[in-house]
């Protein structure tokens, strides 16, 4: 079924999956649509596209571990170009335009034979996730439940950190390293992916993401990847964000044995 023009007419039927992707504005998509409808009875084509979402901190907030210069380039140019590229592609493709971001990534991944839109879509998502995986004053250790889960699935936090670092340093070419909650195994794991691939394509739930494309660290660390990963772990990674994602993930993945009292 087509979208845009016809969508407006059916919007009152509240079929969520037909709602076009919202601009990153403060009002909900539904509210925006209703305003549009009231304002213009003649149903004009309303198209909303992806916007470049700002990181949850100023561009110099991660100094001296990730320079403002890097953020300006990485977010302002690379991430920006992925968003622009994706929007241009979606302009020409009505069917893909109708998907939510998560669906778009899975569909364009096409089970390992990615469509041209995959790179842009996935990289837009990956970078949003990456900025939110870091914070000023980050690093140190996760707390409480997340720490317990890491210790359960890796043996110790140190072991997790070693595995994460090893994955980052043994990645061939461009890619990402993830701390991910695997749905089927109901366990945390470290996963490395090439180019734009992310754990969403396997239906797993990412908790932390680290960009290992050269553009992410070259200006600050040149070829010293080891230093970059150490700095990320020591000073940048946001365990707060990770904990929030973990809490949300537990709504979808049952991690514990229910404590059934013995009669």
């Amino acid at each position, binding site marked *: 079924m087509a979208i845009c023009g016809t969508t407006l007419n059916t919007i009152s039927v509240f079929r969520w999956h037909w709602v076009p992707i919202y601009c990153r504005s403060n009002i909900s998509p539904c509210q925006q649509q209703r305003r549009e409808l009231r304002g213009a009875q003649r149903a004009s084509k309303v198209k909303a596209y992806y916007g470049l979402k700002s990181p949850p901190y100023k561009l110099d907030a991660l100094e001296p571990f990730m320079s403002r210069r890097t953020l300006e*380039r990485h977010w302002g*140019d*690379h991430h920006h*170009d992925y968003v622009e590229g994706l929007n241009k592609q979606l302009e020409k493709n009505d069917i893909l335009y109708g998907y939510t971001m998560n669906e778009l990534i899975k569909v364009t991944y096409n089970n390992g034979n990615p469509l041209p839109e995959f*790179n842009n879509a996935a990289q837009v998502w990956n970078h949003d996730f990456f900025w939110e995986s870091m914070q000023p004053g980050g690093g140190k250790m996760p707390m409480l439940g997340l720490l317990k889960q890491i210790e359960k699935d890796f043996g110790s936090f140190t072991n997790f950190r070693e595995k994460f670092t090893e994955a980052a340093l043994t990645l*061939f*070419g*461009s*890619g990402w390293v993830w701390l991910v909650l695997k749905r089927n195994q109901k366990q945390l794991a470290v996963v490395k992916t*090439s*180019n*734009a691939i992310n754990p969403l394509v396997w239906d797993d739930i990412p908790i932390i993401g680290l960009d290992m*494309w*050269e*553009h992410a660290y*070259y*200006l600050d660390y*040149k*070829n010293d990847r080891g230093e970059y990963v150490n700095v990320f772990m020591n000073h940048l990674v946001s365990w707060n964000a990770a904990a929030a994602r973990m809490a949300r993930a537990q709504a979808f993945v049952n991690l514990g044995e229910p404590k059934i009292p013995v009669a």
Partner: protein
Amino acid sequence: MALRTLTRKTLGGVGLGFQQLRGLQTFSLPDLPYDYGALEPAISGEIMQLHHQKHHQTYITNYNKALEQLEDAMNKGDSSTVVKLQSAIKFNGGGHINHSIFWKNLASVHEGGGEPPKGSLGWAVDTNFGSLEALVQKMGAEGAALQGSGWVWLGVDKELKKLVIETTANQDPLVTKGPTLVPLIGIDVWEHAYYLQYKNVRPDYLKNIWKVINWKYASEVYEKECP
């Protein structure tokens, strides 16, 4: 087995520094035929130095390591390790092969860098692509469209005697795209090859690098494959 060990120890003791102690050929960083700053302003000296001394050297170090581990595994008949090492060998060995070609593909303007090809290769470029400009444009487009890390190549199919433009991912050598393909010119489009100077504007790098491309070397290789 004991004899081999004895020989290894003896040679090591004498300090001959052989690189073929156990019949295993290891590799070392080739010198650049020019100074690091010789390719300015097309490619900065800072990039050339990092690229050569750090990146290429790392590939060689890891290639040698993987080869030693491979020899070890082969001697023990440890098939699963032999197979497991293949990706490290392809990546690091490929990195060594590709960069060794790359350094020869470049020359300072004084040494003829950027001068268009003459002779049979020049003629072949016109025949296969229409003009040198068309070739440059096509390689630029392919290089810019490459997602992630990789190389863009001008190669010759030694059987069909045709010129081809190909891209390879990561450090895959051109031969992975066809056993009859011989690389003439390879352009590194990994971000480390241009980022410090061109930042994310890869197309500018791909345009400017032609000012220092060494067509003489490419012609030599071409004339050997297509006499």
